[in-house]
């Protein structure tokens, strides 16, 4: 195995992993704040990918230019979903919330299937095959863009939670629900904002992923499961953990895909998920339960 080849694979895996990480960040933020497991996460991702695809084919908008639009659209969708549906179930049992979002997921997936059909779609960019040569490395331009924007978005989000008043208020709700109500925070509104932010993360991640890969409706389940693997690996509710988990899964997928067989790559992810669930259910960076 030539070392150059291995390095190239690792870099590609790392860059894709950052986008995965951003997707999982949304899932983790929603769970961390309102303890709701968003089973429709991958479906929101696929919606974002189709939105990007439509904006590109219908309006000629570059994915990177479409990004704010898609993110805003997904924010509104997430906000409305939380306000209209999820909020009624905020105190329901875990499995009822799970089933509710499963229903939402089924409606979204099959909605996209009915609108766009089962075929894979992608955007044909003129710079799709450009790459940078850095020493022995050949790095795809699209992957660099995707990873750069994903990392930037993650930083922005971290700054939002740390420095803005709304961000601090959301963290207060996550830390102590009753306490947040006592000091007069509008918890329901903040929950909806959080759901919107989580959805917007997925929106950005979906747009970026369309630079690298195709989209078809049945990817949604794969992305939902991938999101779960990543956040459980990193620790549900931990934002840094989601990024770390994303990178780890990106690397493991790239390595097992190149060294063993591409079709076996998700088997390793599921194996990893089983081990983490059993041995370290709080995840790598999660707090002790």
């Amino acid at each position, binding site marked *: 195995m030539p070392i150059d080849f291995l390095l190239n694979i690792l870099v590609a895996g790392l860059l894709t992993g950052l986008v995965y990480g951003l997707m999982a960040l949304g899932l983790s933020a929603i769970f961390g704040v309102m303890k709701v*497991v968003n089973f429709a996460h991958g479906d929101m991702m696929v919606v974002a990918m189709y939105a990007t695809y439509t904006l590109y084919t219908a309006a000629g908008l570059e994915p990177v230019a479409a990004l704010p639009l898609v993110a805003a659209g997904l924010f509104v969708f997430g906000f409305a979903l939380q306000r209209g*549906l999820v909020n*009624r*179930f905020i*105190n*329901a*049992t*875990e*499995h*009822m919330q*799970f*089933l*509710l979002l*499963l*229903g*939402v*997921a*089924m*409606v979204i*997936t*099959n*909605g996209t*299937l*009915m609108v766009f*059909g*089962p075929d894979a779609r992608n955007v044909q960019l003129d710079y799709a095959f450009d790459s940078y040569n850095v020493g022995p490395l050949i790095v795809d331009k699209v992957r660099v863009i995707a990873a750069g924007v994903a990392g930037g978005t993650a930083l922005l989000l971290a700054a939002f939670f740390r420095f803005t008043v709304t961000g601090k208020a959301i963290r207060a709700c996550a830390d102590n629900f009753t306490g947040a109500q006592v000091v007069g925070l509008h918890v329901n509104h903040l929950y909806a904002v959080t759901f919107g932010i989580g959805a917007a993360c997925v929106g950005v991640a979906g747009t970026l992923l369309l630079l690298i890969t195709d989209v078809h*409706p049945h990817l949604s*389940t794969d992305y939902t*499961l991938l999101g*779960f693997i990543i956040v*459980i690996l990193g620790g549900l509710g931990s934002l840094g953990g989601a990024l770390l988990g994303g990178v780890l899964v990106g690397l493991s997928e790239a390595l097992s895909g190149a060294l063993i*067989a591409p*079709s*076996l790559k*998700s*088997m390793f992810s*599921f*194996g990893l*998920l*089983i081990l983490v*669930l*059993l*041995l370290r*259910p709080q995840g790598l960076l999660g707090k002790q339960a």
Partner: protein
Amino acid sequence: MSGVSENRVLAGSPSTGEAARGGLIADVPRRALILLGLFAALLLVAPATVGDYLLSVMILVLYYAYLGLAWNVMMGFAGQFSLGHALYIGLGGYTAGALFVHYGLPPWFGMVVGAAVAAVMGGVIGALGFRFGVKGVYFALLTIAFAEFTRILFDHWGWVGASSGLYLPVEYRDTDDLWLLRGSATMFYYVILAMTAGAFILCHWLLQRRVGYYWQAIREDQEAAQTLGIDVFRYKMIAVMLSAAMTAIGGVFYAFYYNNLYPETIFSMHRSIELMLGVIIGGIGTLFGPILGAIVLTTLGEMLTGLTEDLGLDGIKQMSYGVALLVIIVYRPGGLWPWLRRRLGLEKPR
């Protein structure tokens, strides 16, 4: 508020200790018995009166009713959420299918082996999950992970045909061979009817026994159940293994009815979801809920597919399932059966 705890099982009042001794039907209201008898009679004579298409739909209804009853043992009775039951369908189907294809062994033998394999697998997942304290949604994810892991494994296992699938030999024949399960749709109808009836009676019986009460105690409050001296681990294991074995037998039926097995479809998470949807819509934890749910869902799916055939709308059936799930979860979280039972006046006098 939990959907499960709102329900009362058909035969679930604390006074059934006597009923258990008095036989299976002692605790069931007369009116329910009459309706059940009518329903059974209708099912028994159906193949003589309906066409091929309707018969195939009825087989599908009974198949999902059977799987729902099996899933319900674990989730509805013992409160353990599994989202990976496709694993057991696949294990049952593949075990019996491979034994038949490679060694010519009859499905009834494969059924026993497949159920045993599934029970062991369920036992492994249950033991790991329960011992390591994996709960709720995490436990559901663990079951998904095992199912997906196995799916990819079978995708690469040459002996069972890997990703190109395992085919059971099909030949034209005039007679039904019940021993090898080769024959007409009518034969398959009666086989699945017998399986569903058997599962229904088994569930009814279990709920009247000690184990049924222990399960419900665990479902409602595990800590309280443990405090009362119930061996929680043991009874949860019984539920998982029994549910897995029952599901695997459904998988054997699938293998011999459809004659082809692909890891991609049989182990897929969509199967796991499909088989529990009927139970949720009918009523988790109820006896008749899985059957009612299968009737409602399959009819809905088939009607919509038939109506929109010309439009070429691919996802319409699954879409309607999703909408049905949402409507039930939001407006009637206990499911349809508790409501219908009240309407039919089948509530037990208290």
